[in-house]
Structures are given as structure tokens and as C-alpha cells.
């Protein structure tokens, strides 16, 4: 059974529809990558899954339950965490405090999970008390992902986690995504570094103008000449 099943999702920010009947599924433990041109509605789709954009028609089913237009607070409680494309950390707060905020709704002891995250991102363990605003782009991205992982989500939404990072950090980020996935977390990721992302993806989707254009396995998409030329930068 699919962990996430989005059918004919239609909606936007109040004006014209940005999403025009999008479909996407994600099985447990899968890494699914969305690629597509700027303004295609990739970020908007993620926001729609997370209840931040009004869905006018269609449905989003998560773990067998309809979560269409649920409030973000309720969606978090169900085990979906979201790392937005921009402004995804609390800059004046320390690394440790950022992670704590990720665990805000947890009633149980989250310390073991924090230790796991520090193991996953040793760089953060060295900088626990440092304000995140003073850190590099790559480190911030780790904090952002770490915050989202504090809830031990079953599904993690990552919006362009490698945007603006140096090649070294890009490789590291994809390795970490893979490692998080190995812990049993389903990952839905929007990426501009399409080739590298598809290389670690189980499946990929191409969105453009708010519609599905293409879908295949990650490998299949990389092998497809036409798709590569049009959407993956040759």
C-alpha cells in the first residue's frame, strides 16, 4: 500500500490554479524525486501535501487516511515532516534548540533521537551551542533536516535540499538523504540537481505547468534521452 497517494490535486494561492490535477504516489521506504522547470509548481505541491496551500479538488491520502487540507499542526502529528526550500532554520537559536523545536509536539523522551541525529550529522554535534544564523549553507541544511527528523517521521518532504551548496556538500547531502531513507523514512524530494538526485531515487516525476509530464524509475529517467535533454540539463 502506498504511504502517500495524491490524486488529481488541483489548487493554488487563491488566484488561478497552480496545480492542475497532479498525481503522485510514494511507497513506504521509497525515495521519490520531483524535477521540472522553475515555476512548475513543485514547491506548491509539497505545500499542498503539508496543508499550506488550499487544495480545491482532488485528494491526498497518507497512510490510508485522507489528509487533504488538514492543518499543518495535524499533519505533523501524523508523522510527515517538511523542510521548506527557504527559511528552514531558526537563525538566532542554537543547533540544539533548533532540534528541540523539531521535537516540540513530542510527549516522550526525544533525547535518544537527538543523539541519532548527531551521529548522522557529526558536524552538528561539534556545534551544538552555535547560533545557526552564523553557520554555512551546508550546515544549515543539516540543521533543517535534523529538525525535521526529530519527530521520527515516516515521510520527509525535502524541497531542494542542495540548493546553493558547494559540490562537496551536495554529495554529502545526497549521501545523508540515502542514510535517512535507510532508517525507514520515505522521502519525497524536489531537486534541481536532477541527475544526482535521480541516481539515488527509486522513482522520479517530471512536473511542468502544474501537470504531470513524465514518470519512471530513477534509472529509467536517467536513461531516457528525450527527458534528459528537456529536463535534466542535457
Amino acid at each position: 500500500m502506498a504511504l502517500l497517494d495524491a490524486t488529481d490535486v488541483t489548487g493554488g494561492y487563491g488566484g488561478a490554479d497552480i496545480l492542475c490535477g497532479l498525481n503522485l504516489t510514494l511507497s513506504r521506504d521509497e525515495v521519490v524525486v520531483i524535477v521540472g522547470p522553475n515555476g512548475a509548481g513543485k514547491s506548491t505541491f509539497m505545500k499542498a501535501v503539508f496543508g499550506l496551500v488550499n487544495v480545491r479538488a482532488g485528494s491526498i491520502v497518507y497512510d490510508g487516511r485522507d489528509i487533504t487540507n488538514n492543518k499543518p499542526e495535524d499533519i505533523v502529528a501524523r508523522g510527515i515532516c517538511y523542510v521548506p526550500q527557504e527559511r528552514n532554520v531558526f537563525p538566532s537559536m542554537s543547533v540544539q534548540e533548533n532540534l528541540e523545536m523539531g521535537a516540540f509536539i513530542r510527549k516522550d523522551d526525544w533525547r535518544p533521537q537527538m543523539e541519532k541525529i548527531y551521529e548522522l550529522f557529526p558536524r552538528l554535534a561539534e556545534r551544538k551551542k552555535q547560533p545557526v544564523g552564523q553557520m554555512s549553507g551546508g550546515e544549515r541544511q543539516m540543521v533543517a533536516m535534523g529538525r525535521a527528523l526529530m519527530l521520527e517521521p515516516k515521510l520527509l518532504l525535502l524541497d531542494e535540499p542542495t540548493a546553493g551548496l558547494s559540490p562537496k556538500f551536495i554529495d554529502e547531502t545526497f549521501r545523508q538523504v540515502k542514510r535517512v531513507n535507510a532508517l525507514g523514512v520515505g522521502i519525497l524530494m524536489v531537486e534541481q540537481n536532477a541527475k544526482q538526485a535521480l541516481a539515488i531515487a527509486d522513482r522520479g516525476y517530471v512536473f511542468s505547468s502544474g501537470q504531470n509530464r513524465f514518470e519512471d524509475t530513477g534509472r529509467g529517467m536517467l536513461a531516457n534521452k528525450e527527458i534528459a535533454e528537456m529536463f535534466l540539463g542535457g
Partner: protein
Amino acid sequence: MEVLQLVVYGIVTGSIVALGAIGVSLVFSILRFAHFAHGDVMTVGAYGALVGVTLIGVTPMVAIPVAILFAVVAVLVAEFCLYRPLRSSHPVILLISSFGYALILRSAIQLVAGPAPQVFKSGIQIPYRFGEIVIRPDHFWIVGGTILIIVALHLFLSRSKFGKAMRAMSDNMDLARISGIPAYRMILITWVIAAALAAVAGVFLGMDTRLHPVMGWRLLLPVFAAAILGGIGRPYGAIAGGFIIGISMELSTMVIDPGYKHAVAFALLVLMLIIRPTGLFRGTSL
């Protein structure tokens, strides 16, 4: 020696201004609007304490819980009847509505308590003498109480779960929501804390001088100057701003007429906006 004496008065005034400014800053950082009724919430607190002092016969310090109760009720009424329904509109609308609420509070106090100044207790206090400096016992209570409150606030913001969540909301409202932080509960907590601090400031102001219906309104300018000086939305900056404003205001009386004290706060504010518009500490942007 006169300078030292004025610095003592400045620290007392600064304590009161700082308590008001912390509230203004907290409200701005979470609700993103300048709360013009804050001065009059201070007045409500002062008169609330007067009710306690008159009815139960306790000292103003002991009556502080009554003051806090009055101020919190005043602010929550505004939140439910005014600010919440208007929240989705432009911040300027909220600002103007808080200005209107300030007028309502002031008139209500004047209606109930009368326009004449009142005191918590009559008679003079025997001041302590330290060389040539004199300090009234009330001044010890004011400064000591303020220090205690600042320490408590610091512990709340740096150690407690809800305090950290307040900082998170001030840092990045959207991400706080995405993390599941209950925004509305945090807004209510912010109001309660800001109102409580304003109430204490009002009681202290009443202890330092007298109570009258415009006491808080008159202090609003220094309070806003302190909040902006410290970088609006930064509670720690507001504390620094409060003491800077308080001490400058008192020291200025050496060279200018004390009636113009508040103009000094205004001048500092303008100066700050010219030299460093973000305040001493970088403030929250809208």
C-alpha cells in the same frame, strides 16, 4: 555627587521603562504590531494594585498579583474582541485599533477612579543615606523586583520549552508552524507575559510617583523609544534600551528643565533611527 544621585533615579526609571519595553518587544516579535495600548495597560495594573491596597490593606508590592490580574484581563479582552478579529488585516489597522483601545482604557479608569492623582500610601518614607546619595526604600523594591523579573524572564526564554518556542516564533513564524508549535497558544502566553510585566511596571511607577489616569500613556514614548533602541522584537535589547533611556532622561535634568525629560527619550529615538535603524541589537523585520 549630583550625577550619582541622578543615576540612581535613572536606574529606577529605567527599571520601569524596561519592564514596559520588554512587553512591547515581545508582542511585536510574536504578533508583529506596535501595541499602543501598552502604556494604559500599565495604568490598569497600577489601579488594580490600588484596589488591592485599599480593599485588603496590603502594601503595593503584595498587591502585584491583583495588578497582574487586572492587566491580563484588560489585554485578553482586547485580544478576543479586537486583535483576533483584525489579525488578518494590515498591521497598521491593528496598531490603530490598539490606539483606540488605549483611549477606552484611559477613559474607563478616569470614569471609575476619577481624574485626580492618588497615592498608594500617604506620608513620607524615611530614605536611606549613603554618603550624599539618598535612596527611598521603594526604590530598592523597584530595582530589586525588576532584576528578579529579568532573571526569571531570561530563564523562561532560554530554558523552558514554551520560552524557546516563543523565540522560535519570533525567528521564523512559518517554520514554527511547520514544526507543530501551537501558534495561538503561544500568542496567548505572549499576551499574559507582556500584560504581567506592564502591570508590575505600572505598580512600580505608582510607587515611584503617583497614580493618575494618564500615567502609563505618558510613559509610552520612553517605553517605545527603549524597545526600538534595543532593536524592536528583541526583549534583551529592550532591557538595555530601558536603562539607557531611563538614565539619560534623569541625567538630562542637570541641563534642561525636568518637564522636557520625555523629549530626551524622543531625541534618543530619532538619533538611533538615523544612526542605526535596526537598534542596538538587530530587530525583527515585518
